[in-house]
């Protein structure tokens, strides 16, 4: 299952279109990390609006992705987690601690832009 990954200025946006197998998830992680390196991106948005379920492997992969991209200088935001998915995740103890999350693509971009401004003003 190919996940379209688009470059949008300094950011990389991956928009999940359908349920992902474990292999798909690993592939996605590799592809995004590769793009971030190639484009020297400052931010990544992964849109999971379409997913009505996220198991422990998916959550772990997204966490790993966020850590990996941070090492390459990019902040990752997971957007579009559905209420039912969020509820199930906390009940099962699947944590995205340390990973930024936002309501949707628009909020995700706003988040990354705000972070970029912070970095500018703090002189990083």
């Amino acid at each position: 299952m190919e996940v379209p990954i688009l470059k949008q200025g300094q950011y990389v946006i991956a928009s999940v279109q359908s349920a992902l197998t474990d292999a798909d998830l690993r592939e996605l992680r590799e592809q995004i990390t590769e793009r971030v390196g190639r484009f020297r991106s400052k931010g990544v948005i992964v849109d999971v609006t379409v997913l009505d379920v996220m198991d422990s492997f998916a959550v772990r992969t997204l966490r790993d992705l966020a850590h990996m991209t941070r090492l390459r200088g990019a902040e990752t935001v997971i957007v579009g987690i559905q209420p039912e998915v969020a509820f199930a995740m906390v009940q099962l103890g699947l944590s995205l601690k340390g990973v930024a999350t936002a309501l949707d693509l628009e909020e995700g971009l706003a988040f990354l832009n705000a972070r970029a401004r912070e970095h500018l003003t703090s002189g990083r």
Partner: protein
Amino acid sequence: MVAKPITPQRGETPDEGTAALLRELVAHLRQKRTQLREEWARRITVAQLLTAMTEEEIFAEATSVYDNYVEALETGTFEALQAYARNLSERIIPRGVETHEVVGIVLLLRDVLARSLFAKYQEDFEKLNRILDAYEPAANRIANTVAVGFVQERERVIRQQQEAIRELSTPVLQVRDRLLILPIIGVIDPQRARQLTEQLLRAIRTNRAKVVVIDITGVAAMDSNVANHLVQTVEASRLLGATVIVTGLSPEIAQTLVTIGVDLSEMTTVGDLQGGIEEAERLLGVKVVVINEAA
């Protein structure tokens, strides 16, 4: 001749001997309808039952109950009676009639009718025996049907009311753009906690909220289950991009949370609702300016 005990089963018709007895019995009860009904209504008043209803109302209902009772005796089937019992319950429950009153009046009717049978057949003891053998099981069945019908209707109403209360007591309110307030009042059981969380998450998405203030001033006590639910709610809200501020923790609840060892690192807390809203405004980058009216 030895009297056979008759137990009319659902759908089964009693045998000929019993049928004849029941017909005789029913004919007698119909003939004595007026006075037996009055006697019954009188005894209801004396026993101080159905105090929520007027005498006219009691008499009107008594008439229906009496006729349905006799009909159940006659046909040996109880569906019509069940339907009538439910219908009656639906009408009298909102009037505040209690279970013991319904059971009480049905047993009184049973007694009034039995005594009437005693009076009629007291000369013929053997016949009285057989009449009672026909009457007793049916009368038991009737009392049971009416009482159970009433209780079931009550339970249905209670469930309905509980659901309504649950809905009412967890309103999610939008007070400002992107800011939601969830005031929680009363006791939170696991079911309510779950409903609360689901409602909040849906509201976050619908209103695109960035900050939620959960006020628990109205929550008296909290156990570890509820505390964990709260922590889960905070975390789930974060997954939807919303920050949660919890306000109104009483000293007791604060003590409970610390003692239980709940992970509060992810939870922002402020003493009271006002403080919580001010903090929320700060997070949203909203500044409130008081305009002084010129005198």
